[in-house]
């Protein structure tokens, strides 16, 4: 964190961090979504009760307006393993509060902790079994303020998902809070 001279407001946003605003943070391509992935997701988010049949029963889903099984809007096709980048990724992003900036080759703000501060999503085409989703995430504009946990740094991550047909699946902004 940048030191502040006496009388100045302290900041966690360095000049290097300002320069990388707008940079691409990640680009991922999912494996084709499977019906099993959708079923397990639905079971987890509705547990312990049975999820709606349209997420797991082909016959029920076929008679719905969607005409077949669709994934819940909040479904994540990138969990565990992605087609690109290939291989198992054991990212330190969840525990390393500097991982965002490190991934861009610069020093992070050296704050100790991080939390998901909030999320905003616009939905487009639904995700269906067989779909291949591409995700591109860019770094938004930093902001900061003093809060109950000390200096709090807000980092928006702006993500767009598209399917194999080029249709927008969702546009999301997630705000990472570091303190």
């Amino acid at each position: 964190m940048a030191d502040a001279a006496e009388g100045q407001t302290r900041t966690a946003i360095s000049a290097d961090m300002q320069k990388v605003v707008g940079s691409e943070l990640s680009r991922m391509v999912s494996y084709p979504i499977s019906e099993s992935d959708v079923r397990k997701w639905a079971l987890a988010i509705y547990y312990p009760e049975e999820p709606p049949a349209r997420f797991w029963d082909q016959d029920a889903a076929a008679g719905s307006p969607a005409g077949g099984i669709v994934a819940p809007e909040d479904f994540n096709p990138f969990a565990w393993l992605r087609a690109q980048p290939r291989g198992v990724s054991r990212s330190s992003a969840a525990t390393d509060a500097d991982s965002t900036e490190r991934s861009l080759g610069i020093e992070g703000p050296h704050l100790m902790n991080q939390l998901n501060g909030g999320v905003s999503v616009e939905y487009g085409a639904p995700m269906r079994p067989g779909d291949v989703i591409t995700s591109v995430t860019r770094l938004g504009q930093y902001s900061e303020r003093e809060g109950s946990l000390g200096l709090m740094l807000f980092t928006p991550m702006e993500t767009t998902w598209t399917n194999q047909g080029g249709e927008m699946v969702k546009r999301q902004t997630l705000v990472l809070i570091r303190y």
Partner: protein
Amino acid sequence: MIDVSSLKAGDELEPFSRTTDFHVWNRYAAVNDEYVPIHMDDEAGRAAGLPGAIGMGNLQWAYLHNVVRQWLGDQGRIVKMSCQFRNPNLRNQTVSACGRVTRIEPGPDGVEVDLEVWTQDQDGHKLAPGACTVHLDR
């Protein structure tokens, strides 16, 4: 089935409620690959300045979708959703996802409805307040 003609601001959705603890969080971690220490271990939660282990924000997010989907059925779709994670979901809390109609805007092929949505604990304290827009078919 939603009666679109009688829908009005202030109408409340039937809440979606779950008692949350590791048995719920572990299942979500399993599908979202979200084995993060603060969601798995009380000590890790305390080390991060929290009362103990906390539930995933992503699961609160899912519950907000669940309450809206439960109301919509096959009658429409979620257009937009947002929320802020204001308070942590602690072990053994009963979390309810709730919703209330705030605005109704008729369109050529249906109705756009804005909702206030939120999750709350068993004492009514809000955890994740947010907003949602849905499209209802005529």
